[in-house]
Structures are given as C-alpha cells and as structure tokens.
C-alpha cells in the first residue's frame, strides 16, 4: 500500500529544546494510524509539521509524494485542500451556526450553488449524527457535539488525510464511543487516511491499523496493535499498561529526601 | 451573517457621516475663494507690506474678493511686489483703482483694501497680470511715532 505521508529523518527544535530527533514515520494511505506518547512531547507539533504550519530544522515531510517544507505558499494552500485537521477544542467559528460552519469550506473553495451545498452539508451532518442540530450556535453545543460538528466540517471537502488532535480528551464514555465509531467508519466509508494523536490507549487500539509510540524525542515503538502489545520495550509496556512507575519515573528528579528534610537550612 | 438590519444600519451610519461632512464644509467653513472659483491675478508694488501675509484677504468695501497669492521683492529695485488672486466674479476693475494695506480692528490682522476708481471714457480695465498703480503702504508704528514726536516738537 502506498504511503500518503512520509516523515524522513525529521529533526525539530523549539529554541534550544529538541522536540524530535531524527524520527522517521510512514502513514499508509487508507488506514488509521495512531500516534501515541506521554503528554507534552509535542504530538500536536507533529500534526502542525505535517500540515506545513511549522518548518522542520532538518529532514523532510512528504505528502502524496510532494515535499511540504519546501513548498511555496500557493502550493501549500493547494495541498492543504486535501488535508483536514480536527483540533482539540473543535475550533468552530463562534459567530455562525453549525450549518454555516460546515458549509464554510464548501462556500470558500467551490462554486457550487446553495441548494447543492445544503444537500452536502446535511449529508455530512447526517454522517456524524448531528443533522438535527444544524441551526444551533457553537456555544449551545456540548463538548462532544462540538467535536462532531467540527468533524463534519473537516470532511466537508472530502479530504484525503484527516488528522485528529486528541479527539478523546475529556469525553464521557458515551461520547468517546461515538467518536471512536465515527473515526473508524468515516475512514473506511470515505477511503480516508486518518492520523489520530492521542494518549487514550484502549480507545485507539480498537480502531488503529498501525501504531506509533513517541517518547524521548524518538519513535520508541511501531507496528500493528498486536505487535505493540507484545513489544519488548519496557517503556512501551509501561505506557500501554498505564503503570505509575517504570522507565518514565514517578519522582521528578530531586535531591535525596533525607538531606532535604533533615539537612541544613537550604536543604 | 449579513442581515438586512446590519446593511441598513451601515447605510444610515454612512449617511450620517456624509451629512456631518456636508454640514462642516458648507455651514461651518467659508468657501476659500482661491481654489474654489476661477481667479485672475493683479500685482501691486508697496514700500512696506507691514504684517501682510500670503492668503491674507483682499476686500472691497469689507467684502472679500480675493486672496494674496504671493509676496516677493522686485529683483531690480528691491521693493515688495504683492500678487493678488481676484475672483473672476469681479472683473473690469478700472485702472484708476487703488489698493491700501489696512488693519482689521485695532490689533487685527492686515488685509488689502481695494478701492475701485473712477470709470469713464478712455479708462482701461485691469486685466490678468496688470499692475495696480495707486498703492498705499502699511502704516509702520515707528514712523507714526516719529511723525507725532516731530509735530509735537514743532509746537
């Protein structure tokens, strides 16, 4: 199967801090790929790198065979029409209704007349189960519904790639179940390629075709969910099982406790 | 997104702004003579222009008919030459007309007072670029005091 996205030897720094050190990943087309790892290692940054909002310090990112970092502005905007990103907060436009939000990319990038747009919007909303909510304002939606509305907007132009940034964060079990189902079904029904960035292990393992685990600026594990579950790496196992202590230590590095409590004035 | 109400209010806003602009231009400000209407130029030589400035008014009987366009010294005899922009409404001033530098009020700003002269057979009209021959310079305070003291000492 072809790779829709290829990350080759990517290094990315923020100031002096190295976020990614020479990592390589392949996102196969038509499949759901999960990217997991501890909090704060920069998973959202990875999505921004793929989308061309950030430039790597070295290495390359290929989208459908074309190099993203070296693209000019126009080419980048053209490439972005085939990509879609679902932000953690949904990022709906607050001054329009749900309908107008989903219609926005259609009205911007196509010349379709309003009747056709209406049909498309309702279909997309139907796919995420929100057709009845089309006239509501984003402030009236619950968190889960807002995310689904944002998802409808993300698939409005039938992109090739859709990137989910922590879609399950802070959701109740039912909403989570809904989102999990939607991600998988949309991927298959629309022949999308999905990249799900998350740390909800159980949820994403149910639907992922391929998994990457990032930690310590590197890829520490990759493979199908089964392969990952049987991985030798202690770090991977700690992550999967959610153990409090292990290669990622419980205690933040500090001086010996006896010296600090009983020792001199400064401790 | 763009409701009728919003469009209407924006239209009203712009209408009010235009009304304000018109009020300010027409009702509050006077129409500057030069710049608005056609003018023609006359020149006059003075011994002393006093406090006359460019854009000072030119009045006939107190009515503004033009503005001072330029003040400079004649190259040859170093006397001040004042160029006046007169509105074309007021053509056909006889060449016997006179100009004087007057002061509005006691301490006011100075202006040019134009006194149309006699007009009868054989008298030409002032055309664009002509010189007004009869001029009266500005009163200089020191000269006045000198005259006063001189006449006083004579008594």
């Amino acid at each position: 199967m072809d790779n829709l996205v290829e990350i080759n030897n990517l290094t990315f720094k923020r100031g002096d801090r190295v976020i990614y050190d020479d990592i390589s990943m392949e996102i196969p087309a038509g499949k759901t790929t999960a990217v997991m790892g501890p909090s704060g290692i920069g998973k959202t940054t990875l999505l921004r790198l793929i989308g061309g909002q950030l430039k790597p310090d070295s290495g390359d990112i290929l989208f459908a065979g074309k190099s993203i970092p070296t693209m000019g502005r126009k080419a980048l905007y053209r490439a972005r029409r085939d990509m879609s990103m679902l932000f953690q907060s949904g990022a709906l436009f607050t001054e329009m209704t749900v309908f107008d939000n989903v219609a926005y990319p259609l009205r911007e990038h196509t010349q379709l007349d309003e009747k056709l747009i209406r049909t498309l919007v309702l279909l997309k909303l139907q796919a995420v189960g929100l057709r009845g909510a089309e006239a509501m304002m984003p402030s009236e939606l619950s968190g889960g519904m807002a995310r689904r509305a944002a998802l409808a907007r993300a698939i409005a132009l039938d992109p090739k790639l859709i990137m989910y940034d922590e879609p399950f964060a802070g959701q109740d079990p039912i909403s989570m179940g809904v989102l999990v189902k939607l991600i998988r079904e949309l991927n298959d029904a629309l022949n999308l390629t999905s990249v799900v960035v998350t740390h909800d292990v159980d949820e994403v393992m149910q639907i992922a075709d391929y998994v990457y685990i990032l930690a310590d600026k590197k890829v520490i594990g990759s493979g199908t969910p089964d392969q990952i579950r049987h991985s030798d790496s202690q770090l991977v196992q700690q992550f999967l099982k959610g153990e409090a202590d292990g290669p990622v230590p419980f205690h933040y590095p500090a001086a010996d406790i006896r010296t600090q409590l009983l020792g001199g004035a400064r401790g | 997104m763009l409701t009728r109400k919003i469009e209407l209010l924006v239209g009203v806003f712009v209408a009010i702004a235009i009304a304000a602009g018109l009020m300010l231009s027409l009702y509050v400000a006077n129409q500057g003579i030069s710049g608005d209407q056609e003018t023609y130029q006359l020149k006059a030589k003075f011994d002393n222009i006093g406090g006359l400035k460019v854009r000072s008014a030119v009045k006939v009987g107190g009515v503004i008919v033009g503005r001072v366009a330029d003040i400079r010294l004649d190259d040859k005899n170093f006397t001040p030459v004042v160029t006046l922009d007169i509105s074309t409404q007021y053509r056909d001033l006889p060449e016997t007309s006179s100009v004087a530098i007057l002061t509005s009020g006691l301490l006011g700003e100075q202006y040019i007072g134009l006194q149309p002269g006699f007009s009868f057979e054989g008298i030409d009209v002032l055309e664009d670029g002509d010189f007004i021959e009869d001029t009266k310079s500005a009163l200089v305070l020191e000269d006045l005091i000198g005259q006063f003291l001189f006449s006083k000492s004579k008594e």
Partner: protein
Amino acid sequence: MVNKLISLGRATLDKFAAMGRATYMLFGALIAVPQPIKNTPLFIRQVYVVGVQSLLIVSVSGLFIGMVMALQSYTVLTDYGAEDSLGPMVALSLLRELGPVVTALLFAGRAGSALTAEIGLMKATEQLSSLEMMAIDPLRRVIAPRFWAGFVSMPMLALIFSAVGIIGGKLVGVDWLGVDEGSYWSVMRSSVEFSEDVVNGFIKSLVFALVVTWIAVFNGYDCVPTSEGISAATTRTVVNSSLAVLGLDFILTALMFGL
C-alpha cells in the same frame, strides 16, 4: 546596573521585532487581489461592528465636549468682550484637534480593544489555525476586512464628532448663554477655512485611523493565545494606540499649522 541596560536593549529589540512582524502582517493582509464578492459582506459587517456601534459613544462625547468647550470659552471671552468669537473657538478646536484626537482615543478604547480581544480569542481557540488548515488565509479573511472597516469608519466618526460638537456648542452658547445666533455662525464661517481646517482635521483622522486599527489588529493577531495573553494584548492596544495618537497629533499639528 549592567543588567538593566541589557534588559533595556532586549526590550528595544523586541519592540523592533514586533514592528517588523506588524508590517509583515499588514502587507500580507492588504497586498492581495481584492475579492469583492466574497469579502464585501465581511467588510460591511465589520463596519457595523466597529463603526455603527461606536456611533453612540462618539456622538454623546462630541455633544458634551462641544457644550463644555462653549461653556468654558464663554467665561473667558466675556472678560474681553469677545463673546462673538465663541463660534470660531468651538469650531476650530473641534475641527483641528478635538475631533480627530478624541475620536481616535474613544475608538481605540471601544472598537480597538474589541478587535484585539476578538482576534486574540480566535487565535486562542485555534480558529485562525483552522482557517489556515482549510487553505484559507486568515490574514485576508479575518484581518483585512477589520482593518479596512476601522480605516474607513474612524474618519467618518471624527466628522460626526466635530459636527455634533459644534451643534452642542451652539446649544450652550446661543440657547443658554445668550450669544447671538447669527454671530455664532457668521464669525465661525469667516474664521474656518475648508482647506486649512476641515481638510487637515480629516487628514489627521485618516492617519490616526490607520495607526489605531493597525495596532488593534496586530495585537490580537500576535498575542499569546491564553487568557492572560489576550488581556495583556487588549491593554497594550489601548495604551499604545493612545500614545501613538497623541504623539502623531503633535507632529501633524506642527506640520500643518506650525509656522
């Protein structure tokens, strides 16, 4: 001591960097093929938000300032028997100075801070990022209409301010304090020059409009996308706009009315 100098140097360089970013943003927003069909509704909507909704505060302030000016000037002018000069006094102060400057300050406080907060919030909730990912340039779609709306609305508001102020001056001077109505208008008319006073005042408000709207829009676009960041950016808009307006006013006045 040395540390203080170092931080001063760094702060200055930061300011220059910010101005550079601001210029870059402005060019990105304005140098574009205009898309009248798509962008005009956005522009009109912003004129409503920024202009129409400032109309109340500008008119009321103009009225009161005109009235106060008439009141204060009257007490001084009667000492010299010069009540007839009340008209030009009020009109010239408003047209040359108070109209453009006070309108700019009010605008910065009301509309400018609202613009900064709105754009900052869009940045914080990742709406600007969403637009980028949807292959829509937020500079053209969000920033540009707001910039043009501010640039167009503010001079109009300044005209309204001056006009209402002059009317307010008339209400106090003529209707209350007894100055002759004919003199109020006629002496005013002979002292106020269209090209000198009205036009120069308008030019001032154009310059202020450019600066205030630019500052407001940039601070929103550039802010740290947290709640503290947005509130800091909003404050910065009001403070920086006000200082810029007052500073520019001095320079422009010296150029236009100086000797």
